[in-house]
């Protein structure tokens, strides 16, 4: 039985590094876009709200893999040769923005109406109320779900392998093609993902428990 050479192990670690890069990139960009999506969804202008809702429902209703392909081939038609990292990054950013936007909107709407009233009666405008009173509370409420979604993002980066981006899963496939020990290789790959995701999952659960206890 062939054993893992140290070079192959390092190759896996390199893939892990790229997984982290793609995860961070998509999550950060997706968060910024998601904030915008949330504001649009809460807007008082009807068409803006509807557009945001359509966007969210559309993205949430298609598989990430198909979205990846659409972005990959879609960007290609502009003639620019886009590296797989960029295509995957854009697709994931769109994906993340739809989900985070919806999560955050849910949190904002779950803040009691009385907080809005109190802010309004002090003379704060709708924007001031939203930014100074409602959103700070909503962020705290949404933290468990947001961190939970980060776990989803990390797992989703594995799909970038399909468009050729060499992250952890692709690195595993490449190594397996010379080693022919899929069980060992992919169990190891799975193990790496587990090490990344498990602590975050636990953190999210801990935060959720604390929040439920803190509420009187």
């Amino acid at each position, binding site marked *: 039985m062939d054993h893992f050479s140290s070079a192959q192990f390092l190759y896996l670690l390199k893939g892990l590094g790229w997984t982290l890069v793609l995860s961070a990139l998509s999550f950060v960009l997706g968060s910024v876009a998601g904030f915008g999506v949330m504001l649009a969804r809460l807007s008082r202008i009807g068409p803006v709200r509807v557009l945001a809702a359509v966007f969210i429902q*559309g993205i949430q*209703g*298609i*598989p*990430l*893999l*198909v*979205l990846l*392909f*659409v972005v990959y*081939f*879609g960007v*290609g*038609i*502009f*003639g620019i040769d886009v590296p797989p990292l960029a295509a995957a990054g854009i697709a994931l950013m769109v994906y993340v923005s739809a989900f985070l936007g919806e999560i955050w909107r849910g949190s904002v709407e779950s803040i009691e109406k009385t907080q809005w009233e109190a802010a309004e009666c002090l003379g704060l405008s709708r924007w001031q109320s939203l930014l100074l009173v409602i959103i700070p509370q909503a962020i705290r409420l949404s933290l468990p779900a947001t961190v939970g979604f980060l*776990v989803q993002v990390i*797992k*989703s980066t*594995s*799909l970038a*392998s*399909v468009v050729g981006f060499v992250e952890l*899963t692709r690195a*595993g*496939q490449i190594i*397996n093609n010379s080693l*022919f*020990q*899929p*069980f060992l290789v*992919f*169990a190891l*790959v*799975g193990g790496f*993902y*587990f090490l990344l*995701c*498990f602590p975050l*999952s636990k953190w999210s659960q801990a935060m959720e428990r604390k929040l439920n206890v803190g509420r009187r």
Partner: protein
Amino acid sequence: MRYTFNFSGLAPYWEMFLDGALMTLELTLASTIFGLILGVLCAIGKRSRLPWLRTLCGIYIETVRNTPFLVQIFIFYFGLSSLGYTMPAAVAAVITMVINVGAYSAEIIRAGMDAVPPGQIEAAECLGLSRPRIYWHVVMLPAFEKVYPSITSQFVLMMLMSSVTSQISAEELTGAANNIQSITFLSLETYIVVAGLYLVLAVLLKALFSLGGLVLFRRRRVVGRAARETARATRTATLRRTAAPRQAA
């Protein structure tokens, strides 16, 4: 450089699209049914008094929830075949999907069961109901009704996730798209059409589950109908009252 979309070039392949969509639905149906069963068993296991059972279920759930579906498929399909267990891609796809859905469902169902107020169980015990009967009527059924929306959302998500099984050549919708675009070279159009088809499937599935919810859970039907009738009655009563002459202050 302007790009001209050519959707009509895909028209001759409508049967392949349809076959792929049907396969997606079949995969989803099978994994929903078995995944639900597995989820219920695991939820019960996680709440058991036996510590080893709790730990086992816990390990299963956490492992599945913290690793990517694609990797799970690879482990199952390629891993098992390297150990001598070969199977058709569709079977491997369903088994992996069942394992995946089972873990997520277990968590959801367990939370629903935990949310049952202990006071209700006490009341049932004081009425002399047997343990299995209490478990079913006071714990399981209310838990099902409560978590029905979350669980059915999970199933719709699984349907979308089935697209990943295209990577082991299960002949579902994304697999069909891959084939079609390699023949026609109309890659962008193919995947846009497939995205639309998934959207339609998702909407259909959600609607089906919604209807199913009304059929299964009589309470929602009864309470909903009663609320609508009360609203109607108050409207007619108020109209009658305001039409009557006002009394002197």
